[in-house]
């Protein structure tokens, strides 16, 4: 399990020295308090890999920390598929027809999301098309009944880190605007740590033997919205799609 060693090493490398001395406040049941309204300040939703700017797609650097070259380790046929997806993205991106973004894309869309915690659940509510993740913290297993657009999330705490296992993913979602994709074999392990009062470090290791030659890991920061009385508004994507269609008549 060479890749696991690599993942563990990269986790250790990821945590800044200053952050290691920070201890997050606790919820009433004693777990790190991740609650608040958070949002990325990156272009991962455009492309997880290094990318130059294009129309409506700002330039950005890869958020992939493993493999070290910052590229998704596609199998050859899958790499070809991604190129096709990129070419057809204006039509083929599932977000263009307002589908549920899936994990991990929902975590780095340019929309705020609210995290709330109770002893049995961690809930992540995104402003984008009211996408909702319910992470079960009760030790229960993934159901074997169905695949979901947003997958099925079961979490536990490892020290101060929320570790979420995401399975039951429908194959129809993309990782980003650039057509990076997966199959229904996608399995994700997310690690979310409050590394500073107003920062979460978000990390996700993605495995899908149908599409990738090896598991790979993304890492990024989520910033807390500190505007007074900040709250989620709404982005009812499908309604605006209808409005746009009516206007085009």
């Amino acid at each position, binding site marked *: 399990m060479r890749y696991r060693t690599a993942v563990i090493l990269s986790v250790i490398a990821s945590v800044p020295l200053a952050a290691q001395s920070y201890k997050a406040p606790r919820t*009433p*049941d004693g777990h790190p308090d991740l*609650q608040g309204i958070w949002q990325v300040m990156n272009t991962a*939703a*455009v492309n997880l890999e290094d990318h130059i700017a294009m129309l*409506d*797609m700002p330039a950005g650097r890869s958020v992939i920390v493993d493999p070290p070259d910052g590229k998704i380790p596609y199998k050859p046929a899958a790499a070809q598929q991604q190129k096709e997806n990129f070419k057809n*993205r*204006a*039509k083929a*991106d599932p*977000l*263009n*027809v*307002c*589908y*549920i973004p899936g994990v991990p894309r929902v975590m780095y*869309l*340019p929309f705020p999301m*609210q995290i*709330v*915690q*109770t002893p049995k*659940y961690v*809930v992540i*509510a995104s402003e*984008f*098309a*009211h*996408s*909702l993740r*319910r992470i*079960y913290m009760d030790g*229960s297993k993934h*159901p074997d009944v*169905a695949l*979901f*657009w*947003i997958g099925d999330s079961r979490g536990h705490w490892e020290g101060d880190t929320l570790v979420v296992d995401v399975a039951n993913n429908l194959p*129809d979602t993309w990782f980003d*605007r650039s057509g990076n994709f997966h199959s229904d074999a996608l399995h994700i392990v997310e690690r979310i740590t409050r590394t500073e009062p107003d920062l979460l470090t978000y990390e996700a290791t993605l495995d899908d033997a149908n599409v990738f030659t090896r598991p790979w890991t993304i890492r990024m920061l989520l910033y807390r919205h500190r505007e007074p*009385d900040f*709250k*989620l*508004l*709404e*982005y*009812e*994507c*499908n*309604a*605006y*799609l*209808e409005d*746009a*269609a*009516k206007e*085009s*008549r």
Partner: protein
Amino acid sequence: MKKLNTLNLLVAAVTASALMTFAPIPGEGQQKGGRGGKGKGGPPGGEQYGPYYAAPVTPGEPVGRTPDGQPDMQGFWTPRFNQAIFEVQDHPTRQPGIGPGKGAIVDPADGRIPYKPEAAAKAKELMSKNIYLEPEAHCYVSGVPHAAYQQFGYQIVQPAGYVLFLTEYAHTYRAVPTDGRPHISPNVKMFRGDSVGKWAGGTLVIDTTNQNGKTWFDMAGNFTTPAIHVVERFTPVDTNNINYEAVVDDSTIYTQPWKIVGQLGRHPDKNMELMEFACVEGNQDLVHYTEGAGGKAKEKGPLTH
């Protein structure tokens, strides 16, 4: 609005009937909810909310408190509001797609929405086109108070300073702050509006403004306007029962404020989990309402990234 042609009408009929598999017309035997135990989607011995499962009335324990002192309403709740999911007011005669039944209005005493004449005419007009225009057929999220009596029920979670309602239908949520903050600017209108809450004794009072007027109370053309103001009261009676009421005011279309009443019953399944009700993703109405209406939604290009 462009006139729909026959093909579109056919498509509409097919998609409407597909929706009816989720929302079948209530038959005569379903009018006395609470007896049949035939509600869909729940364990045996349940009651009915419309055709859907509702938890039977079961006395519970005294209401507990959350760590920050709120009365604890957390868990999975099923609504009991007669047939309000079809039409919020009493509807004694059969209408297209909607059987006769009782609504949830207790004031005025006749159980009907106190429309001004021109608004009554508009509701009737919308009802005649409900299979095209009903907002949920377009996968729009419901407004308030419709969200409180949504089919399939919802989960309540109460982290410090908030009450959240997580709804199975269309995977929506309401996040209601209870920290005393004011409403956001009236310039920002939303399907679900802007809700602020406070605890008054053992009752959660939620004040909702800023709705965009694009939602209905039901499937029957009972529309809203952006002037709507709703005050809801959730009163947990015991661990298994919550009393609900809402006062709806909109002087642009009603002659007086009106009030609905219903109950929420805790789902008896201890291992209850909400499933994902993906709506847009499987809804052929997207094609019908956009391409069919002359647009080509899937060729609109990037709307977001």
